[in-house]
């Protein structure tokens, strides 16, 4: 598949938008008209209509080049968005291998990986990168393997180490996050890291998820969807910069909802890594404007109902308080009251 990489921005003038094809491939996170936390994990196998974000195990789309440019800007301002504890080096190489192999296999027009023993040759055409290096020897790359490859792969990446029946968040590249700080959370276990999430602990979501993940098998990745909302197509909604993007939440008016308010979907995929026995969490962020979302009538209807009936704790935790009423009112115009069909794909 030949992708048309767009020249667009996720800051300042916010020129990001989705092409019509990009709208239809959006991983819409609601399979019914209401939402509550659940473990909702399924095997990460190719799925969905042609072109959907689920088609390839590691998804690359038209926003690739612009997202990588935004990541580089974030890292220049704040290098702490990439961190890896010293014992995670084997897991770093595992991740580099996984991402290079998948991107090269699914998008041969754009990426090439040639292996000759431990001498590897990596070509990333969209970014103009051509690198020969020795797998396992960090001194043959311009930076640590995890930083190197995650500057060339969409989504946030967190590697969790498995010890003592727990998972420990011990390395990551996090620049497109929904309000959590890698620098603060690195080294935490699965429950600690999700500590601030309301309601879910009480209904046992994290206990069940942990049990499931501890036995995650090589060769059997799983996925789940999570979501929040963002004002302006801003990828870097970090707590570090909250004082900079927080004021945007007060700028939503009935006139600008369609362009300013975005549904932010996280496609989370989880992979058992071979050498390190760690687990890679890929947290891929997809943004869609309200005016783009309502071009799919099923999604318009359903998202109106989900947002209208959301439990107050979640409204607060996801930071939707200020602009939810305006957004619900705007979406109501697109809800014809008809029943919505099952599943997440467009009709």
């Amino acid at each position, binding site marked *: 598949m030949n992708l048309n990489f767009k020249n667009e921005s996720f800051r300042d003038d916010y020129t990001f938008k989705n092409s019509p094809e990009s709208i239809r491939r959006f991983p819409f996170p609601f399979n019914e008209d209401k939402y509550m936390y659940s473990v909702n994990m399924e095997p990460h196998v190719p799925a969905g209509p042609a072109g959907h974000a689920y088609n390839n195990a590691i998804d690359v789309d038209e926003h690739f080049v612009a997202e990588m440019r935004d990541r580089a800007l974030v890292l220049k301002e704040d290098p702490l968005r990439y961190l890896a504890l010293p014992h995670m080096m084997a897991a770093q190489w595992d991740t580099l291998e996984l991402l290079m192999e998948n991107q090269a296999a699914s998008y041969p027009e754009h990426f090439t990986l040639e292996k000759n023993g431990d001498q590897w040759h990596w070509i990333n055409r969209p970014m103009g990168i051509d690198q020969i290096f020795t797998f396992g020897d960090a001194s043959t790359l311009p930076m640590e393997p995890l930083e190197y490859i995650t500057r060339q792969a969409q989504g946030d990446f967190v590697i969790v180490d498995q010890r003592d029946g727990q998972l420990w968040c011990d390395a990551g590249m996090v620049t497109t996050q929904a309000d959590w700080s890698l620098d603060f959370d690195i080294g935490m276990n699965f429950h600690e890291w999700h500590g601030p999430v309301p309601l879910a602990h009480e209904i046992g979501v994290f206990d069940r998820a942990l049990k499931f993940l501890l036995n995650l*098998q*090589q060769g059997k990745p799983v996925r789940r969807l999570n979501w929040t909302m963002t004002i302006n197509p801003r990828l870097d909604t970090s707590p570090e910069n909250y004082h900079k993007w927080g004021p945007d939440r007060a700028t939503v008016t009935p006139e600008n909802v369609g362009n300013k308010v975005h549904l932010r979907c996280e496609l989370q995929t989880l992979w058992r890594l071979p*050498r390190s*026995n760690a687990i890679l969490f890929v947290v891929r962020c997809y943004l869609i404007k309200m005016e783009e979302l309502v071009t799919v009538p099923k999604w318009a209807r359903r998202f109106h109902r989900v947002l209208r009936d959301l439990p107050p704790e979640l409204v607060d935790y996801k930071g939707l308080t200020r602009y939810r009423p305006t957004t619900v009112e705007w979406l109501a115009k697109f809800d014809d009251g008809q029943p919505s069909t099952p599943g997440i794909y467009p009709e």
Partner: protein
Amino acid sequence: MTINTEMKVRVAQIAQVADKVKRFRFERADGQPMPVFSGGAHVIVSMRDGKALRRNPYSLMSSPEDTVGYEISVLRVENSRGGSAFLHEKLKEGDELVLSQPVNLFAHDHRAKKHIMMAGGIGITPFIAMMDQMEREGAAFELHYAVRTRTHGAYWKELQQRYGKHRVKIYCDEEKLFIPVADVLANQPLGTHLYVCGPAGMINGVLGKARELGWPKQNLHSEEFLAPPPGKAFQVRLARANRTIDVAPHQSILEALEANGVEAPYLCRGGACGQCETGVVSCDGELEHNDHFLEPDDKASGKKIMICVSRIKGNAVTLDL
């Protein structure tokens, strides 16, 4: 929607490596590469032995970076339930078997300043793969390996040659040499981790000694695959499927289910991983918990059972299946 990741393999080589120990090398029938794994991982080997389907866990001992083939070593045990007897006496080079993906319940702690491994007999196998990985990663390690006699002990010569006598120490029962656990543990730097694999008595002895010497449990690791202990026959009732299945004296519940076409989840088949935890609806008899996974509270509650190694003493147990 499931992914079938089992690998069909051919027996590429069988070698007698010590008294009663054979090494088996498996390569994929379709010529695809084997996945890289981490030292300490095991695979489940599925064997078709006449009418019986046997599935046993074996630690991988080949280099984790060898993607051409996987190797295991198997001790021929007396009173074998069938697995080791089949592998030793019936399996031939060129035969086909099925392997699971590698699963690691005995991974080394990458934070360790140093790794100390203690092996008893065939318990050496996971450490062979671990040392290969540690050497590649530049980690500090030493191995203390207890064997009954020099001819019973597999691989000790090769290991000493490869890693040096200062890192690989052999203790032979016959020569009245035993691992001096207290001396080995006396002056290790903070951040050292200890790994034990061998017979239950050895594992308990070494770990008990380490605790007596003030080693915290976070630094202690062990692996023991339990063979499902035999018992008397009983019946399993499946509450949801509304079926009744007989469990024979030398069969585990899991094996009985599989023999009757009921697929239940499992990973280790040795009572360690927790994957086959099953709800008990009622029990006409007494649960016999043989696993390492359930907490004492869970065992006492009578509500859960690990069907890969545990059984009942009595007439019938009704499971939430």
